């Protein structure tokens, strides 16, 4: 039986199409030790903007472990620290995020329990906001369509009107 082939996968040897060291993760990391990395993360995570975004994402039901892993992988890709340091830092990131969630009073999914996510049956406020935005957009589009309709229809009618042909009246006029 033939399998569906995926053509999204990288071509063999594709990773060697750039010079060695051209990618950020191929050059020495900016932060070499665990302590430097922890300090970097704690500083970043204490900013107001980050805290707002983090609480929003946590409220959406994204597991904390997934957020932590995504953040550390992103920094590995940018060459901030090595993957080893990233793995070592992960528990600190998870704990820090849970502390942020607890202090902000947000109900979050830690991703550590095997049970179903805590907010599976709960209507998320972010989902409500998203739906409301979508509905508002649709209403606006409908209103703008109503306003535009008469202006659009008029010139079309003008084009459709046929000019009455003048019938030849003279004796020598052509007959059909």
């Amino acid at each position: 039986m033939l399998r569906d082939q995926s053509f999204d996968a990288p071509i063999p040897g594709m990773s060697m199409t750039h010079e060695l060291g051209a990618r950020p993760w191929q050059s020495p990391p900016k932060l070499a030790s665990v302590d430097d990395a922890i300090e970097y993360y704690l500083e970043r995570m204490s900013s107001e903007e980050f805290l707002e975004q983090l609480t929003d994402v946590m409220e959406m039901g994204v597991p904390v472990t997934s957020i932590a892993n995504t953040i550390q992988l992103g920094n590995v890709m940018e060459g901030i620290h090595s993957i080893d340091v990233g793995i070592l830092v992960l528990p600190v990131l998870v704990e820090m995020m849970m502390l942020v969630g607890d202090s902000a009073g947000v109900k979050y999914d830690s991703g550590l329990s095997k049970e179903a996510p805590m907010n599976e049956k709960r209507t998320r406020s972010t989902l409500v906001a998203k739906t409301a935005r979508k509905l508002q957009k649709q209403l606006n589009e409908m209103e703008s369509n109503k306003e535009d309709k008469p202006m659009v229809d008029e010139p079309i009618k003008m084009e459709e009107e046929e000019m009455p042909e003048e019938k030849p009246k003279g004796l020598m006029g052509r007959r059909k």
Partner: protein
Amino acid sequence: MRGFNPALVTHMNLDLDKIISEEKAPTKNTGLLAPKKSMMNKGQEKINNPLYRVANHVKILRDKRNEIKDA
């Protein structure tokens, strides 16, 4: 099914009690010619272990979280 997430594994495997257990005080050699520091343990101090430092950070954060929960 949940995919592999190293954050989950590292968090679950981080046994704080085991890592941050108090070190036993080494028995002192009383002889005059006894070495002041054990050369065997040189470079094996816990503070040099990144895992120990990470565990300390996690312990501080966890204690703070428990304080918030209890309050």
